[in-house]
């Protein structure tokens, strides 16, 4: 019984109401993109329609960004820090999640609770004392400061996420491997990890995204301009004085978001499952 009315109804009760949400989500990002492509003459002309590009597209802002700023250094710094912090955190997370998921040992419960509590600690609670610790370790003003501190919020997240994945894998396959003479590490690497690959990818994706997007620690621990990460570089080095070069700023914001958006387009389902599994910040 599919009368035309029944087919058209969702248009009004579903797709029409969902449109404002989609517009709300996408408009700022659209505006970011068109601002970065607009000529200055149009950008600062109050009489033009701000939502459209009418006087032609320009890549001038991107060119300026590449030539006159340290933009690409920041980009590379972000890449180095994010990859290093992700690898370290996923490895530590896998190792910590395994005994929590599989073994019974004294202190295991407390350690699980500690991981859970740390997972809830926002970076803004600890940045002051951490900057002292980073100083004492002699790591301030180097990318190491970030590679060392990012795992403080990435490891609890990865451990928590992987713990959930490991539990869904039946114990029996590991028991067989162990009776065949594999040790724990071999069982973990050869038997459990291949089955838990989606979990590991998910953890790695989120760890990378959280590192790439991190702002507070990068702002506090690293001050030389050429060592800054993407987010901090754009915010603190491109905004100078009272004159804002909005075209350049938006170009920076676009390129700075691009790696994450690309990863997101390819791995949408992992992001969705990680989000619901881990309740990410």
């Amino acid at each position, binding site marked *: 019984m599919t009368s035309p009315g029944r087919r058209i109804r969702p248009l009004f009760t579903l797709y029409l109401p969902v449109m404002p949400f989609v517009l709300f989500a996408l408009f700022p990002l659209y505006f970011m993109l068109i601002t970065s492509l607009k000529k200055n003459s149009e950008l600062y002309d109050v009489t033009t329609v*701000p939502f459209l590009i009418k006087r032609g597209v320009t890549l001038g802002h991107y060119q300026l960004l590449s030539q006159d700023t340290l933009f690409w250094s920041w980009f590379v710094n972000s890449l180095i820090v994010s990859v290093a912090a992700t690898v370290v955190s996923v490895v530590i997370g896998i190792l910590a999640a395994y005994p929590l998921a599989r073994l*019974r040992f004294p202190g295991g419960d407390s350690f699980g609770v500690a991981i859970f509590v740390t997972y809830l600690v926002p970076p803004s609670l600890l940045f002051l004392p951490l900057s002292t610790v980073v100083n004492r370790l002699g790591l301030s003003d180097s990318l190491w400061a970030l590679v060392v*501190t990012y795992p403080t919020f990435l490891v609890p997240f990865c451990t928590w996420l992987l713990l959930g994945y490991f539990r869904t894998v039946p114990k029996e396959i590991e028991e067989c491997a162990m009776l065949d003479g594999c040790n724990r590490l071999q069982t973990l690497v050869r038997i459990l990890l291949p089955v838990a690959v989606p979990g590991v990818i998910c953890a790695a994706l989120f760890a990378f995204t959280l590192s790439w997007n991190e702002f507070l620690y990068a702002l506090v621990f690293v001050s030389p301009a050429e060592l800054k990460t993407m987010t901090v570089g754009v915010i603190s080095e491109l905004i100078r004085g009272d004159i804002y070069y909005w075209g350049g700023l938006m170009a920076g914001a676009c390129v700075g978001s691009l790696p994450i958006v690309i990863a997101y387009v390819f791995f949408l389902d992992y992001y969705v499952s990680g989000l619901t599994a881990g309740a990410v910040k």
Partner: protein
Amino acid sequence: MQLKTVEGDVAKLAARGEAPTAGLSDFLVRDTPVAYAFIGPAFFLLLFLVAYPFVLSLWFSLSDARVGETGSFVGLDNFARLLRSGIFLQTLQNSIVFTAAALTLKTVLGMILALLLFRLVRFKRLIRGAVLLPFIVPTALSTLVWWWMFEPLYIVNYDIPWLPDPYLAMFTVILVNTWRGLPFFAITLLAGLVAIPRELYEAAESDGAGPIGRFWHVTVPLLKPVLAVVILFSAIFTLADFNIVYVLTKGGPFNMTHLFATYSFVLGLQSGQIGQGAAVSLFLFPILLAVVFVQLRMVRKAAMYD
């Protein structure tokens, strides 16, 4: 549903005395040296870079430490001074207004969006992907475009001074936080909706419940645990927000948008009073404790029903 398993994990961690398993697998489950070796790296990381800084933070808050100086013990002096400081009381008020408003908006809009997303058939992936995007893009950078949109040049404002006006600035900060946090609410609540058995709706319908009745008597009660987790989780990270305020208003105008994180940044780093700064950021701790307490309790309760 993934969220359920995560909670179940806490439940298992929390509920002691699991049923004893059979001989062989029981033997395989006990391997203390390996367990300690495996959790070692994570343990030392938490010890030196989370627990130690936390203790350090407590010490700072009880001392007159400044940048480069260890300082000496001054008792609760920092806290007493904060509670007499107009700027801090303003920060406290801002934090409450900001968190309450943003959480309410995110919960209500997130619920509506989740219900809509749930019913989607065509373009499901595309629309879900689109509404989730604000959560993935770096907050510091996306806040920049909001700043640009509220710049007194054009767009949303024909001569409305959004950011220079204290109340409108607070509104803007709340709006941006809602924009960024809404996808998390929507997607997590959607996962909760998917897990509700269809039969319950059918039963309610045959009992004569309309759409609104079904929402209040089936959806809401069954979604309560997920709702609680999402709201509590978001409460911490909304209250602790730094990026949006730092980029958009720097706490101004007249400290009317300062939150704990940004004020602690100003006190501790920009004016070098680490003791005061640490004391401000520690105000985040009670809410954190409350959330942990409630979550663990909820999880234990869930474990009892298992």
